[in-house]
């Protein structure tokens, strides 16, 4: 299993036929460039959401603090939640889907390259649109779950909630298109011999996540349509004075919202299922079990939404059903954790930063998983629901799970993206500040919640005696903030001056490591034949594959045309959706015209160069 990194004399060949410059990025349909744009944009929003979090933590430093007003606080925590989920965790995972999946399955691009670009631009514009609300002092302020009737035009008369529901529906389009794209890519575009059960785990989890996306997004879309109609046109979906039921919103939101949780976590599981074997020099233990566990989690994830609603009063029978379903999810999740440990068992572990983050995920995510078991026990959650205990739980899951996994992926695939390593020294600083920061921030929250501090309160009474836990959290949050700066500094520094990496610097087993770093814009000069799950760990198979993948293309492969219609269509969709805020039929209808125009232009533009 020697590293093929030594054999990479052509590793740094510049990709020919590739344009550079701003215009080329705006019109690009190359999945690798789109991935980079996704990552950078998500990192930018991560900073925005992080600053929001720090302001929240400063406000909570002392009881009855008046650092910010309640109204501002409500905007900050709403935008913090919305940003971190929809503008950071999801798109950052999509960045990895984009870069890694086509390379792992031996494809030259995704199935619909222009649609892929469209997804990115919609995500960018949707995110900017929602954040633009700050300029008007009208950022969303009804929490990221937007429970009716607080979001009604009666109780939220300003434009705050308009920005929220319009922004979210715009982002939904991007996710939906992404889901369709990746399902098609993975089902249809695998290299010869790459059977489903030979796919790397990251691709598998992308696949499962994509299914969750295309099934969960429509549900929230409908919920947002209802909310929008209620607010703008006076329908009564959630209006109790007219017989509407506010709890219906919660059902719709969580039918989407729980699969959403797995949309966040499964990509991270996928990343570390690739990273851990690589740095253990052992194949993934129980590959089929880990795959099935992932599918099972995705599947059962559809039947557990009401465990977010144990306090709502659905009655003991419904509660019991959702208790049982939720408990069952613990089993496949546990199976995954044991399989990761078994993968490392007997291996030869190299603690690179990527590996540290993966191991850190296993250790820290378990804490979040176990508090999840407490919450699955419905009577317990009657105490813990909407308290800081829950805040601790989901931050352990999302930061300690999803984000740690994605950062493992960052250190793992960065050399493939840029041809250079991220600094391992800075990486270790990043890892340890993350570990200290996140545990110091979120662990004390368990106690704050246990001693009766509700979430979403802009201040708390000193009598609750939870000041010390809040102070610890605030200190932790700043350490965590520091870790983010270290990461960004590391990326900026290493992208230009990092140590050069070969094609397969980690000695990893999967197809993405069989091509030069950074890859040609067409990825594979010729598509290799795959014979096993770890093609680069079989000496003979490796030889055959490298002979194909490390050479030059005999003739320039036909790649899709660049196009400026994705960005224009994305802009017109954002505009059209934004006009809904006016509440005037004809203006809204007028807004649909540019969309129609762009769709037509898109349809008539050849996707590939003439003659092909």
């Amino acid at each position, binding site marked *: 299993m020697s590293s093929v990194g030594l054999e990479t004399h052509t590793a740094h060949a510049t990709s020919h036929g590739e344009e550079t410059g701003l215009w080329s990025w705006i019109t690009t349909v190359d999945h690798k460039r789109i991935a980079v744009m996704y990552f950078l944009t998500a990192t930018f929003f991560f900073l925005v959401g992080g600053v929001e979090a720090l302001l929240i933590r400063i406000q909570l430093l002392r*009881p009855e603090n008046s650092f910010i007003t309640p109204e501002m606080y409500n905007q900050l925590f709403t935008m913090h939640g919305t940003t971190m989920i929809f503008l950071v965790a999801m798109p950052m995972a999509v960045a990895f889907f984009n870069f890694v999946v086509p390379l792992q399955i031996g494809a030259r691009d995704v199935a619909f390259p222009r649609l892929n670009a469209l997804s990115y631009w919609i995500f960018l514009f949707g995110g900017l649109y929602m954040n633009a609300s700050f300029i008007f002092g009208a950022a969303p302020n009804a929490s990221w779950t937007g429970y009716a009737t607080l979001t009604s035009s009666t*109780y939220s008369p300003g434009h705050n909630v308009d920005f929220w529901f319009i922004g979210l529906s715009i982002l939904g389009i991007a996710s939906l298109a992404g889901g369709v794209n990746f399902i098609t890519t993975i089902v249809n575009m695998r290299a010869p011999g790459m059977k489903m059960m030979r796919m790397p785990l990251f691709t598998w989890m992308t696949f499962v996540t994509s299914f969750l996306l295309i099934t969960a997004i429509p549900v929230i879309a409908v919920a947002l349509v209802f909310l929008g109609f209620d607010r703008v046109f006076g329908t009564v979906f959630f209006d109790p004075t007219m017989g509407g039921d506010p709890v219906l919103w919660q059902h719709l939101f969580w039918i989407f919202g729980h699969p959403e949780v797995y949309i966040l976590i499964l990509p991270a599981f996928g990343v570390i299922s690739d990273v851990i074997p690589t740095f253990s020099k052992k194949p993934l233990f*129980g590959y089929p079990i880990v795959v099935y566990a992932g599918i099972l989690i995705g599947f059962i994830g559809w039947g557990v939404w009401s465990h977010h609603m144990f306090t709502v009063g659905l009655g003991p029978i419904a509660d019991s059903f959702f208790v049982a379903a939720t408990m069952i999810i613990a089993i496949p999740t546990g199976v995954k954790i044991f399989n990761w440990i078994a993968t490392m068992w007997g291996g*030869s572990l190299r603690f690179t930063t990527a590996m540290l983050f993966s191991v850190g995920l296993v250790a820290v995510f378990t804490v979040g998983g176990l508090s999840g078991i*407490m919450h699955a026990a419905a009577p317990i959650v*009657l105490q813990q629901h909407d308290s800081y205990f829950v805040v601790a739980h989901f931050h352990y899951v999302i930061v300690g799970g999803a984000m740690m996994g994605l950062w493992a992926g960052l250190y793992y695939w960065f050399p493939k993206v840029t041809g250079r390593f991220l600094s391992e020294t800075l990486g270790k600083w990043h890892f340890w500040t993350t570990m200290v920061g996140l545990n110091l921030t979120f662990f004390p929250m368990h106690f704050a919640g246990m001693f009766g501090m509700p979430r979403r309160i802009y201040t*708390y009474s000193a009598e*609750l005696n939870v000041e010390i836990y809040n102070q610890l959290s605030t200190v932790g949050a700043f350490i965590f903030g520091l870790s983010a700066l270290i990461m960004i500094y590391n990326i900026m520094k290493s992208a230009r001056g990092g140590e050069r990496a070969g094609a397969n610097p980690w000695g990893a087993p999967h197809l993405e490591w069989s091509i030069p770093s950074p890859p040609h814009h067409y990825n594979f000069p010729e598509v290799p034949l795959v014979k096993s799950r770890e093609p680069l760990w079989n000496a003979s198979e490796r030889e055959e594959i490298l002979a194909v993948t490390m050479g030059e293309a005999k003739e320039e492969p036909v790649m899709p045309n660049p196009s400026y219609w994705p960005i224009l269509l994305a802009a017109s969709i954002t505009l059209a959706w934004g006009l809904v805020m006016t509440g005037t039929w004809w203006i809204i209808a007028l807004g649909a015209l540019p969309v129609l125009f762009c769709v037509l232009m898109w349809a008539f533009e050849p996707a590939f160069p003439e003659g092909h």
Partner: protein
Amino acid sequence: MALTSRTGLPGRVRAILSLPIRLRAGVMALLLPLLMAGCAEEYPQSTINPKTDFAEIIHALYTSVFWWTMFILAVVWIALAYVLVKFRAREGDATPRQIRGHVGLELGWTVGPAMIVIAITIPTIQGVFATQRPVSDDAMVVEVTGHRFWWEFHYPELGVTTANELHLPVDRPVSLRLGASDVIHSFWVPMLGGKRDVNPVPVVREGRNPKYNWLYFTPFETGIYMGQCAEFCGEAHAFMAMRVVVESDEEFSDWVERWQSGDAPAPLPVEEGVSEAVESEPALNGDEVTEPIRTQARAGDPLAMEGRDVFLNQSTCVACHAINGTSAQGVIGPNLTLFGARTSLGAGIRENSTENLIQWITDPHSLKPGAAMPGVNYNMAVPGAAPWPATGLNEEQVRAVAAYLLSLR
């Protein structure tokens, strides 16, 4: 931190930081016995200090699940630590054996956790049913209504309506019927048990029953318990607290009786039972510390008498507020009957003292941004409520109204 918490004071201390030192000391001295009595617990909203059957069921389940999770955590962390230490790469490591899986192990760590899950699920489902059993007939019903941002408590059997401080007799089952007038709130008094959402109840067609949520429990220890709204309900969500006074049967009946006699002058305490109740009732207003509670202090207090006139006849107070036995019958804001007997104001956010009350009447938003009550010189315009002009009371009138309200006890 630890020091202040032992005296039980810190939250309210900061509230009065703006007062002159002498006054502050005075107020603190007055509040001390109250707080010692009511908040002797170090964590007044602790979820692990059950004082009802309901809270006990939850706590028992929590304890058992807690130890299960600790066990799992120990297994995972020990295994992980062992692996990380034992199998780290060393110089000259040979390629590890390429093991791809083991059916027995996979079965083991599927079945093992499954057993634990079953062991947790069975008592959980028992708990689900135990915490939502049908309402028993002998329970006292209280209709709880969540408003932005205060609590209304109505005892249909007693005809009593109060706000923000719920009085309950000890050892008697109680059923809370929960409904909201505007957005979703959640009733949470941790030591009395878990929370239940207070939903706006959808209107139903003639002849059908609207669906309310219920909480059912029996408090078994007297005391003042703190709670607060646990579902984000808007700007002043953080300030939507409440207190539950669990008291002896006698104290409770006395409270009800006093409520029912309302604003009318009550007889001087002659019965012994009553005077006991008086002593345990905390004294709040410095001027009246020595007065027996049930005397109408204002009879001899011209300021309170003046305040009564201002409240009922010279201001817009009565448009929203009601005081039993008077012409004030507003239903928009909290019912103020026995206001002087409450320990807190503004929905549990400040101690009920003259100074705080004056500040509240003058400028409620300074204590509670988002409150629907207009100030002396600003209008009220909050989402979901009809706009209301400033009260325009002068300083003298405010002091008088405060004195009147505090005399209602």
